């Protein structure tokens, strides 16, 4: 779960409210049971969930902002802060852990000078850990954007990261 943020960051850009309407009403029927999937769709669009997005969602669905904030901070996939151009998802599941995922993580952190949940200053990479993508037989597994890198060894980290702008 995300730690509680003291202050939600403001959106750096104007939100496309027509797009949000399409997501909330057309795709998900304005139904509050679909809140989690609405938030996922908003995150796919903006690469994170901008604060005005939460407020708008509350207005459209009638669910109090506090509840929506609760959902956005309870579930680990949501980010309330802008993320980098390339999302590094490192699997820290048991099978990957046993095959040395921690050492791969250390190499990544050393290489990029960021920790879990952080973004590089130039906005190039965000590092997030996840507990099991389901490729357990090929661990350690690191996903960068849509590419899944299997059997990754610590000495291959630099080369792999260099492939992404």
């Amino acid at each position, binding site marked *: 779960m995300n730690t509680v943020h003291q202050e939600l960051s403001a959106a750096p850009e104007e939100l496309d409210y027509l797009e949000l309407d399409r997501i909330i009403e057309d795709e998900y029927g304005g139904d509050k049971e679909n809140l989690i999937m609405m938030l996922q769709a908003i995150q796919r669009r903006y690469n994170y969930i901008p604060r005005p997005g939460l407020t708008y969602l509350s207005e459209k669905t009638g669910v109090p902002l506090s509840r929506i904030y609760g959902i956005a901070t309870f*579930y680990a*996939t949501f980010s309330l802060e802008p993320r980098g151009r390339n999302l590094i998802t490192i699997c820290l599941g048991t*099978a990957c852990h046993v*095959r040395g995922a921690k050492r791969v993580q250390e190499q990544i952190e050393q290489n990029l000078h960021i920790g879990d949940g952080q973004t590089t200053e130039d906005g190039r990479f965000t590092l997030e850990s996840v507990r*099991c993508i*389901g*490729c357990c037989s*090929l661990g350690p597994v690191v996903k960068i954007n849509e590419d899944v890198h*299997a059997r990754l060894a*610590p000495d291959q980290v630099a080369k792999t990261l260099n492939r992404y702008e």
Partner: protein
Amino acid sequence: MKILSVKDLEKISKKFSKKLYDPEGVKVNVGMASCGIAAGAKTTLERALREHPAGNSVEVRQTGCIGFCEEEPLVEILAKGKPRVVYKRVTEDKFADVFRDYLEEKFNKKLILGQMRDPRSVLEEDRENPQEKVKPLKGIPFLDEIPFYAHQVKIALRNCGYIDPDSIEEYIGRGGYFAFVRILAEMKPEEIIATIKKSGLRGRGGGGFPTGIKWESCRKHPGERYIICNADEGDPGAYMDRSVLEGDPHSVLEGMLIAAYAIGSAQGFLYVRNEYPLAVKRLVSAIKQAEAFGLLGDHIAGSNFDFQVKISTGAGAFVCGESTALMASLEGKVGRPRAKYVHTIEKGFRDSPSNLNNVETYANVPVIMLKGADWYAGMGTKYSKGTKVFSLVGKVKNTGLVEVPMGTTLREIIFDMGGGIPKKRKFKAVQTGGPSGGCIPEVFLDLQVGFDELTKVGSMMGSGGMIVMDQDTCMVDLARYFLDFLKGESCGQCTPCREGIKQMLEVLTDICEGRGKEGDIELLEEMGSMIQKFSLCGLGTSAPNPVLTTILYFRDEYEAHIQDKKCPAGVCKPLFHYEVDAKACTGCHVCALKCPQEAITGDKKEVHTLDRDKCIKCGICYEACKFDAIVVR
């Protein structure tokens, strides 16, 4: 076309089984489940399609995972009257060679995993074996002979790797939907429930609750009833459900349809972990096809039975694998469990009777209905019937998914099928049951898998994750790893779990960082016992299990950390260092070249030296050395 009867299914089945088993030209099946894709299968498929575009005599298709993930990407090639050969490690650059090998009938052993003697599924025994008259290849093992496959009986995994998961017709071609359509026409709900009860099927997600009794209870409660499939598969290291969803999504839909008809429900939900986007994609496609064929929606197969299925995705919360948390999440809320004084079969989703079953449980249902309860109950042990899929991962040679009859021993799975520990290292423990389970040492390897056996030694079978560990795994670090995971995943409602896990984690962290003291082990045992007794839900009550079993079976490691301030496995960095063993070092210089800190120096053919001040203990040299000359002290 709309399916209205078993006759309609038979027409499709005849046509498509011919396509599956008796292709006109050459057929190339590329394993395209997530593990195959991670190993490079997507580029292999793209290459194959480029070289053999649709419309000519070579048909290139995708299939699901055939289970032997260690050797991915796997590509099967078959042709009329010729053997079916599965090639291993077929990355894009190797595809052309592999294809040529098959066409020119060279059958180079180095490229091949094995040949298929009999591709039929468990539902096709009344058909002739399409490979019966084909002359087998000499010197190439049959797949069913190689240890990885020899002990397996595929029920839940019956179609994975054999059909294109995006084709409902291929599913029907191998016996799919016959169970459901026949039941709809001929059986009463009570009869279906009686069959499932008699089969002895128990929940495959870890709980092991008798499925028939669950369905029977749910049916009794008034109100709008819901059928829910738990596809959250949160246990790290377990991916059995992913394989079924990606390789054979219709098997789950058919199981849900049978449950819906038996219980009396018109609405189903599939709650899928969001880390499985490919599974979601395949399910969306499967649901659309089932609807187009009249097998989902209103007036299914021309009857009065209506059933819709909706897909809901999770958002990264392990606790949402718990039934009440899952249902809260389905309602668009935070996934906090509730106390189960009233069970979810009475009041669950939307406060209505809800039947929740795991993916693998549903996948077994059509087979049980077609082959009969007695057939199913004839496999397994007294209280654990049928088969179970395990994900065999970690420090084992043959990683992958295996489906074995209950009662198979851990030793058979890990050493016969798994091939034992790689790099000549020694077995240390096997972790089963995910974060709720425990670590089982070598002395118990002859235990049989099943719902009850493994609990006798403090672990559990769980959803099927089986993580093998060797001498390089620190059991204290592992216990800390699990607690760290559970601390992050705890919903925070109840004090024993929220505060208790946090405190246990602090004690373990102290131990791993050299600050352990006398009395710490006893403190962990006391806290663990309290958390087990008083937590609100299963996450809390089972959280101490990994810690308590490692203390029970590996106490000496805890004592080494606390008293000697040493980590014998070489994991807890403050408690060990690497050294060059002068007797073993050949001066090959590989470690020095790979060291990211340039901490190793030496001339070629001379014993090397490791500078401890520069060493960051990344382990690259330890893994790289072929002579075991880098040692842990």
